[in-house]
């Protein structure tokens, strides 16, 4: 899942970015409203964590303009203003959730995860495909009841495919949602990660779940290609 953090406080921005990256998110950061709007319009984010009081462009103005330009990422407003009218104003501007500073980082992570699930139409935190279980909260994967140890990047790819179950996902889409701007993405990084993922999921002679659709990308499905 790819997340954009728009926050003018460098310390807070870097702490949130680092914390979310450790949770397996691909995280980009912007320090002011104009930069944030540019990122939101040029990259397809699953969740945008947005401060309201920003230099250059107010967070609410950013949100309004982003929605007008068709940005459909889930938006979590992060602000120090807790008055009801402030919350209403934020939600009416197109935000999906609201978190008041100071906040628990665990709560921020939980809300970002919930918004990511909503983005892909999932309600449960656990996604099941045949005998495969992907626990999006615990970031754990089981197949046939056996725990499978995945690297963070491999888990991120699997979770994104699981959210898009039975739908083909292109390499570029996977790159966009799994890697952030700081990541050094090699040309075959996705293919290599998918190969490793298939190998790790191939336990106890289970049938393959990740299939290649030529010209379309990869699909996670219990049915064949």
């Amino acid at each position, binding site marked *: 899942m790819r997340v954009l953090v728009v926050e003018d*406080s460098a*310390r807070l921005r870097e702490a949130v970015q680092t914390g979310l990256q450790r949770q397996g998110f691909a995280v980009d950061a912007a320090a002011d409203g104009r930069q944030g709007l540019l990122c939101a319009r040029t990259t397809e984010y699953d969740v945008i964590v947005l401060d309201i009081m920003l230099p250059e462009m107010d967070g609410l103005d950013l949100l309004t303009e982003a929605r007008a330009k068709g940005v459909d990422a889930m938006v979590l407003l992060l602000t120090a203003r807790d*008055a009801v009218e402030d919350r209403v104003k934020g939600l009416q501007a197109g935000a999906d959730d609201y978190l008041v*500073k*100071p*906040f628990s*980082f665990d709560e921020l992570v939980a809300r970002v995860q919930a918004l990511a699930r909503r983005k892909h139409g999932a309600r449960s935190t656990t996604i099941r495909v045949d005998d495969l279980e992907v626990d999006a909260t615990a970031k754990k994967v089981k197949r046939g009841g056996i725990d499978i140890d995945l690297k963070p990047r491999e888990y991120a790819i699997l979770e994104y495919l699981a959210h898009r179950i039975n739908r083909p996902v292109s390499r570029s889409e996977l790159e966009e949602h799994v890697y952030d701007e700081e990541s050094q993405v090699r040309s075959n990084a996705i293919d290599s990660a998918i190969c490793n993922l298939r190998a790790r999921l191939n336990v106890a002679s289970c049938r393959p779940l990740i299939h290649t659709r030529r010209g379309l990308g990869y699909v996670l499905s219990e049915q064949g290609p």
Partner: protein
Amino acid sequence: MKSIRRELTLRVVTRVLPLIVLGCVLSYFLVRAVVYREFDTALRHEMQVLASAAERIGDGVDFDFAVERVQGTAIDSGLDYFFDARLSDGSLLKQSPLLKGARLDMPKGRPGQITVAPIMLPNGRQGRGCEYTFEPRVVTLTEHPGPVDRPNAPTGPVSIVIGASTSDLDRPLAALALTEVLVGAGLLGATLLALLSSVRAGLVPLSSLAHEVTDIQPANLAARVSEHGQPQELVPIASRLNALLARLEAAFAREKQFASNAAHELRTPVAEVRTMAEVAADAPAHDMRTTLLEIASVAAEMQGTIDTLLTIARANSGQLAIAISEVDLGTYLRELCARRIAARPGAAPLTCEAPDDLLVETDLAAIASILGNLIDNALAYTPSQGRILARAIATPTGVEVCVRNHVADFTHDDLEAMFEPFWRKRGTFIAGSHSGLGLALVRALCEVIGAQIRAELLPATSELAVFITLPRRPGLPAEDAPAREPSSASLPPTRPSAPAALDSASAPPSRPTPLRT
């Protein structure tokens, strides 16, 4: 607790009650006096009739009068009427049978005059007595041929005393007194009822006003007392109350806004600390030192904000000590601008126009903080394509410093709001350590050093101009201030821009540190 209704009622009653009592008593005694006078008149007439019945005939005296004559007259009351006629030697001439020879006494008046006075009758009742001593009319034997009552009577006047009971008068007078007491009491009761009703009706507008005021709660300070329809006496009260409410509402709004802004400004650094700490908890040990240093830095910024707030509070409450010294404002402003230009090469161009020898007596730390904050504010909020002008000029009343800079979307409403703590115009938020306290501090310090501050919007050039007018000497009228020769020896030391709070208790009098947000 005092009650207007009770006080008013009591006052009216205490004034009306004696009047009613006095009226009743006076009318009673007036009626009584009239009745008694009529009674006395009747007695005098009776006395004249009796006197005309006494005749001296030769050596004797005849009293040609029958008691029965007065039976049934106005003064007759049956057994309560007495008369006693005596000769000059005191011997009895004729008297009422009821006296049975006893004397009917009363003080003698002057001879020839009828005297009336209250007496005690022989039957023990109160009555009126009438006495008349006179020479009887002389009648010849030819005119009165018959026997006389007292032959060989001594010469001299005859004295007649009449006594009549006033019981027939006292009974109606007692009834009159009772009537007057009842009427007075009734009158007092009616007055009281009318008074209570009138006071209640008269106090209705006051009660309504009290209800209106009672209904005003901190949550609805926008409510106002209705001035229209109020009695003339209450209009000034309602008007003053409304003015007070307006001030109260504004103060509450400022307080609420301040609390909200303060909470907002303190939440962000707290969020920084908390998030950094929570994220660092899962970080490798070598990252911990960096995080701790960052947290210490946030704490220092928070302390700076709190110190500035305290300084504003002390300045506003007159608890900020100042140290007056001679300051060459022109030189100080030029040096300050030079330092700022050097520190912010990418900012909008800053021009300084300040002549030498602009000497004022003021607090160096305060004026340094005022000028530093104004210029920092202008540098922070002026677009890079705009310009900033800092100018100091001598005026007849002192020195005027003006800092002008280009602003975007600034309105006249913003002019007043910009001096409120934590105020920042929406959309003009800038990154960095600005907390929105700079201009609030400037205003508070201006008040402390006796400087006047005003802000103007120059729409033609889209510029905001802040003017600071300093008297040449604090507390001295500018026109009386003596002109002073400039002295280079009095140049104030320019201080670095390190933020430090101006402590009212510990601020050094000679070399205070500039204060900045």
